[in-house]
């Protein structure tokens, strides 16, 4: 039936109500998803490869000579001082759990983030951003810490160029301050984009949480940029494969989960839902060399952070290692789609899922989340 409107006012009468109804019902539908805030659109106009080039320069000049949280506060303020008042209003937000939860494993264009996107920053601003991030992430380890973050942005730039389009790329990563940086009150740094989310929560001059931290990369294979080859999240995959293949057949049977896992269980939006009963194989029952393989995998997450931030966390996870469980689904090689591994301790929770390709079809890529049973969002 060829349908044509006779008049605009009739349209106002009928089509309008139709449109609003469709909006209303889809709002209900989105209640199960994790789409975030609406302060940003996720699009960028700047050249993404310029961003990673600027961020990967080694020169760091800073006037913040203090140490610990005081230095992080100083560097946060230094970054803020480079921003225009409009940019600052976008970046400096109030602390709330709702704001802290606005992260996702989707490109920012498909699930909006809060904060300011790297694509809208000048070189000076990017340099100040870099100064801050190298203070909270570890430096000088290939594909770990700050280098892993850059590698992740490089991979997303690559997705942009091979058909992912403007939803992808380093320009679509966002930084925000939730609460005013201070050595006395509650505040957080939230850096979030497609395959990388890293929060840092501070309270009373101490770091109170660095999770939930999301990692992942597509492609899983190496990507070259600015005369460097990055493979941001390969070491973690290899470490888990080593951990699982190191087990005896009987241990593997105990560790194997009965269900299949094509995604993370505690991904974005799944806060505070740790299983009441741990599944799989208790690490305390393993030989010390096999326990060391578990700890090696955990370290690839914790040691991404600056050593000061990492130290107490790693001590805790090490002390709890005997009561930590590991489990997996799929194969122990962590090489095919559907392979899944979990580390669940009294505090630590890490999941690694090797799932189907989205931009690069028929080639798996990794998603991984590090959570903490008590200190997600700084325990708030």
């Amino acid at each position, binding site marked *: 039936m060829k349908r044509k409107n006779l008049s605009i006012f009739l349209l106002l009468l*009928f089509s309008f109500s139709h449109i609003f109804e469709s909006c209303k019902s889809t709002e209900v539908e989105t209640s*199960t998803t994790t789409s975030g805030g609406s302060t940003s659109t996720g699009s960028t106009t700047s050249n993404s490869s310029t961003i990673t080039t600027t961020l990967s320069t080694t020169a760091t000049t800073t006037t913040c000579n203090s140490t610990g949280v005081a230095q992080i506060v100083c560097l946060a303020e230094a970054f803020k001082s480079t921003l225009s008042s409009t940019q600052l209003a976008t970046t400096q937000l109030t602390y709330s759990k709702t704001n802290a939860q606005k992260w996702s494993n989707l490109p920012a264009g498909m699930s909006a983030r809060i904060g300011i996107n790297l694509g809208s920053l000048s070189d000076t601003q990017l340099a100040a951003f870099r100064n801050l991030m190298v203070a909270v992430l570890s430096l000088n380890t290939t594909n770990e810490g700050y280098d892993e973050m850059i590698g992740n942005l490089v991979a997303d730039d690559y997705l942009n160029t091979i058909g992912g389009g403007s939803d992808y790329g380093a320009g679509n990563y966002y930084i925000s301050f939730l609460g005013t940086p201070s050595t006395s009150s509650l505040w957080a740094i939230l850096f979030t984009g497609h395959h990388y989310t890293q929060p840092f929560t501070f309270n009373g001059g101490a770091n109170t949480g660095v999770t939930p931290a999301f990692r992942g990369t597509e492609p899983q294979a190496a990507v070259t940029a600015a005369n460097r080859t990055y493979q941001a999240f390969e070491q973690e995959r290899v470490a888990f494969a080593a951990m699982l293949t190191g087990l005896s057949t009987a241990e593997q049977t105990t560790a194997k989960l009965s269900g299949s896992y094509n995604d993370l269980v505690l991904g974005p939006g799944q806060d505070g839902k740790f299983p009441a009963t741990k599944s799989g194989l208790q690490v305390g029952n393993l030989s010390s060399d096999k326990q060391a393989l578990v700890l090696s995998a955990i370290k690839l997450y914790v040691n991404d952070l600056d050593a000061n931030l990492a130290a107490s966390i790693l001590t805790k996870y090490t002390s709890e290692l005997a009561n930590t469980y590991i489990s997996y689904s799929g194969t122990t090689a962590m090489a095919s789609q559907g392979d899944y591994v979990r580390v669940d301790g009294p505090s630590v929770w890490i999941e690694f899922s090797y799932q189907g390709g989205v931009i690069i079809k028929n080639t798996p890529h990794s998603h991984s989340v590090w959570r903490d049973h008590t200190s997600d969002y700084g325990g708030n």
Partner: protein
Amino acid sequence: MKQLTFSISRLDGRLMVFLISLWAICRATIATAHPMPNSVVLLNVHANRIDAELQIPLVELQSAWGHAVNDSSARLVERLGPQLRAYLKAHIRPQSPDGRFWTVSVGELTAHESQNPINGVYRELTAQVQMIPPAGDDVRQFTFFYDVVLHQVMTHKILVLVRQDWERGQLAESEPVQVGTISLDIVNNRILPLPISIESGSHWAGFTAMVKLGMQHIAEGTDHLLFLLVLLLPAPLLVIGQRWGRFGGVRYSLKRLLLIVTAFTVGHSITLLAGSLGWVRLPSQPVEILIAVSILVSAAHAVRPLFPGREAWIAAGFGLIHGLAFASTLANLQLDAGPMALSILGFNLGIEFMQVFIILLVIPWLILLSRTQSYRVVRLTGAFLAAVAAMAWVIERITGQTNSLTRGVEQMASYAPYGLGILALIALWLTWRMKRTSQLPVL
């Protein structure tokens, strides 16, 4: 959504931009509702049964079921139809509050490609499932034990939505309403059934929804209205010889107008009834072509009286054709007898309301104008434009492709209110001028 895009294409200027952006926002929220390829269960609620459509991503089904349904999806249904049906039946078990399970039967299966912005293109299985509660049990209250794919794939999610619920005035043409999600209870590592309690509706809600739908169909159906308007164009005139003569008086005009409109209504009511009850089924293309031809015929009649005095019969005859087009909308709802009868009545009333409304807006000016010398120009211009539009539609509906003329008609239709305003102004001005020179024939 299909209708929505059609209406948008007809809007002008800023209104269009506004509507399109609103529409885009709505689309975006739909997209984020499916982060991974989830399963979707769409419920069509009837008085004593639920027809469900399942949409299951093959990549997830393969993980759960083992068979290489995604890796080799060619001729999937031919190869594995019976096993698929058995598998689905084993994992779909609605249960009434009294503990009795419903009867579930799996109908048509199709494997096809689907797409969303997050996952891109992926393959999907669509299954038609009928669920019937035991005798005496309420179709709106049940515990939905449904764990297709999810029994094995712990990360799978199943969105359950109501797509059509006539008694609550919800028709398949609007967006489905989500009733819940079935997924793993992570904390307790178990899969809980979804308690479903759909608010009861009433025949009144279903009836009024159909009235609204009927009004919408006419408001958006330029071709139906054009046919009627062009047929009414010469109605106030007397036939003198082989030509249209002078104004025949208000009583004469109204009698003829009423007769034509009533005849059209009788005609399309008959085929609407016959078509929606399934007694008559014609493919839509010839029906659509005939509707365009009906406009052409009535345009010719407005130029020269082809069937003077027999307008009502012609209106009734073409009404039969227009009714067939209306009927296809109703037949698609697949309603039971009672609701169907009410729907036919409501839909028809909606059509009548809108027709009468439009006619009331136009007729006073036609009567005023028909008393003036200039009506000849108005009548011939109207007939000519309608004929051009009709021929464009005939070509479009034969070839199946839009042409620049039909696009132009769409554009023109959006200016109809202005056209009506201009028509009224001209009518009033000419009447005033002729009154001054006392040239007007008596009313």
